[in-house]
């Protein structure tokens, strides 16, 4: 068995990104080959710590490959590579920034150093800004940039305060020191949380998401809406579970923020009448839920929820962007009945939507079931009730949208008003394949979720309070 160094996942895309400048003609090839090689690398990663430049921790930068990072990387790279299959003429100009984004996202997951995290965060943001500029909504992108800049400033400010207090940037060391004397670190933790909250789209800070994702095409939507959001949430999951120690008050305040996000996001999505708007607001709401779980000591559930939502959102944004581009808009009326002539798209979109809404047969249900069960085990009834109310709203608008897209327009007899032709065959079949494969994966994991659940448990074994995670699996019933 090969044992590859994880730095390859960061370095390879970077190298390719810069060498590509010299070979403009085969830019596509760079993208596809780069992302596929990355998958290959990730598959042969071994768990452990990898030192950069030979400094022993806590000095120097280390890359941390644990189960959490490994499976996050796997999902990230697979999704990213799938997106690369979609390369179009337009995307060729974005080859470098895509590869840089991949490198930065890999780095975000892998790094064991807080400042290095900041660097990757900034690189990822800048790459994202360049990617986003491809949809030609520059003032929306400017909004994103400003928000991102303030966010990273806050992160760095918080990090500076922490450094002043504890004198280290290494995550593991930071955790040790912080656990020993947590007092006085709260302001810094709050600042860091706000900095990251901009990226994970928590509510008062997420106006950029609305601007960007409302107009996202099938390339930007999955990239920003699903992959970026997911990876940022994974970062938050690592920071606020493994590293920072919060007291109850801070936790409560931050949870309040996430709760507002959950409720407000669902309401905004309920009110929306455009496919991508619905998706983005529901994404905001879900980010709230995920952050809530992570903050309150359910990281394993949060982790698997992130992965499941990421996949489902990816499929939906992909199809939504594609349909919007083909149909020239994405309001429900315009797209009514679009799935009648495109049943494959319809199938994938429906599966992803049902999974997102947490209906059985699909992965999302298992996640939601375990989530609620674990909440209930700790005798909290209000939180599950709130989450269930939110998912009621979510289910209603999701199904309303899906049914609207399946339903034939009024007074329509046979034939179709909206016909997706697919401007290029390759793109069309790429969308077909990607969405079908991913939605079948959602079904597969829904029917046999046990491995995924046990991986989640392995990744985030015991949560922060030391309570064991109890899982309801399909095969074995309830187990510790």
């Amino acid at each position, binding site marked *: 068995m090969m044992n590859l160094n994880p730095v390859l996942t960061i370095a390879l895309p970077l190298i390719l990104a810069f060498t590509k400048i010299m070979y403009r003609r085969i830019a596509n090839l760079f993208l596809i080959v780069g992302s596929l090689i990355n998958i290959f690398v990730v598959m042969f990663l071994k768990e452990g710590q990898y030192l950069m430049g030979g400094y022993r921790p806590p000095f120097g930068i280390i890359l941390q490959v644990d189960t959490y990072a490994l499976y996050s990387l796997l999902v990230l790279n697979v999704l990213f590579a799938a997106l690369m299959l979609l390369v179009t003429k337009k995307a060729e100009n974005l080859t470098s920034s895509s590869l840089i984004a991949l490198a930065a996202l890999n780095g975000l997951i892998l790094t064991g150093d807080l*400042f290095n995290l*900041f*660097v990757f965060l*900034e*690189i990822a*943001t*800048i790459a994202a*800004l*360049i990617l986003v*500029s491809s949809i030609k909504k*520059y*003032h929306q*992108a*400017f909004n994103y*940039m*400003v928000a991102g*800049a*303030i966010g*990273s*400033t806050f992160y*760095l*400010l918080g990090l*500076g305060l922490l*450094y*002043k207090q504890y004198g280290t*940037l290494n995550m593991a060391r930071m955790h040790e020191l912080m656990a020993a004397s947590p007092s006085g670190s709260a302001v810094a933790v709050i600042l860091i949380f706000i900095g990251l909250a901009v990226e994970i789209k928590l509510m008062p800070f997420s106006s950029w998401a609305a601007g960007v994702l409302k107009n996202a095409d099938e390339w930007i939507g999955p990239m920003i809406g699903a992959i970026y959001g997911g990876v940022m949430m994974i970062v938050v999951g690592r920071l606020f579970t493994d590293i920072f120690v919060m007291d109850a008050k801070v936790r409560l305040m931050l949870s309040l923020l996430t709760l507002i996000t959950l409720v407000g996001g669902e309401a905004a999505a309920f009110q929306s009448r455009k496919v991508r708007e619905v998706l983005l607001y529901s994404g905001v709401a879900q980010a709230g839920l995920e952050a809530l779980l992570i903050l309150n000591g359910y990281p394993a559930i949060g982790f698997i929820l992130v992965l499941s939502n990421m996949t489902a959102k990816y499929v939906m944004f992909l199809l939504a962007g594609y349909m919007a581009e083909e149909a020239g808009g994405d309001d429900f009326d315009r797209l009514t009945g679009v799935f009648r002539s495109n049943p494959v798209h319809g199938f994938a979109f429906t599966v992803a939507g049902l999974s997102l809404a947490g209906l059985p047969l699909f992965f999302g249900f298992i996640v939601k079931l375990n989530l609620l069960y674990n909440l209930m085990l700790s005798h909290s009834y209000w939180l599950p009730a709130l989450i269930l109310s939110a998912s009621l709203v979510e289910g209603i608008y999701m199904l309303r949208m899906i049914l609207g897209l399946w339903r034939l327009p009024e007074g329509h007899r046979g034939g179709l008003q909206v016909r997706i032709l697919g401007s290029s065959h390759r793109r069309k079949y790429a969308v077909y394949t990607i969405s079908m494969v991913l939605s079948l994966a959602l079904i597969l994991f829904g029917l046999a979720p046990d491995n995924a659940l046990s991986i989640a448990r392995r990744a985030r074994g015991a949560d922060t309070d030391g309570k064991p995670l109890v899982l309801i699996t399909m095969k074995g019933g309830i187990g510790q």
Partner: protein
Amino acid sequence: MMELLSLSLLFLGIYGLVTKHHILKMIVSLNVMETGLNLFITTLGYQEGQIAPILSSQFPSSALNFVDPLPQSLVLTSIVIGVGTTAVALAYAIKIFKDHGCLDLEKIEGRL
């Protein structure tokens, strides 16, 4: 003292971002904010009466009376990133000006 000064610079930047609608003014505010932050981080490592962390013939080995060099190197990175961000922002500004003919976001939003 220096911390507070640099922090106030940061807040000044944020104030600019909150109140201004002109893109160039916002970019300037961003830069002011970043500068404030960078200054703040640099002050973190500074200790009264210590020397620069440079190994020279004068100070060949002793590490105990150095100021902390790490924040300075961090700031170096941060400045580079700030430059990148500003470049992107200015590129946006040009694009927006080409699209809308002005740089006042309020006007652009009103016009949209």
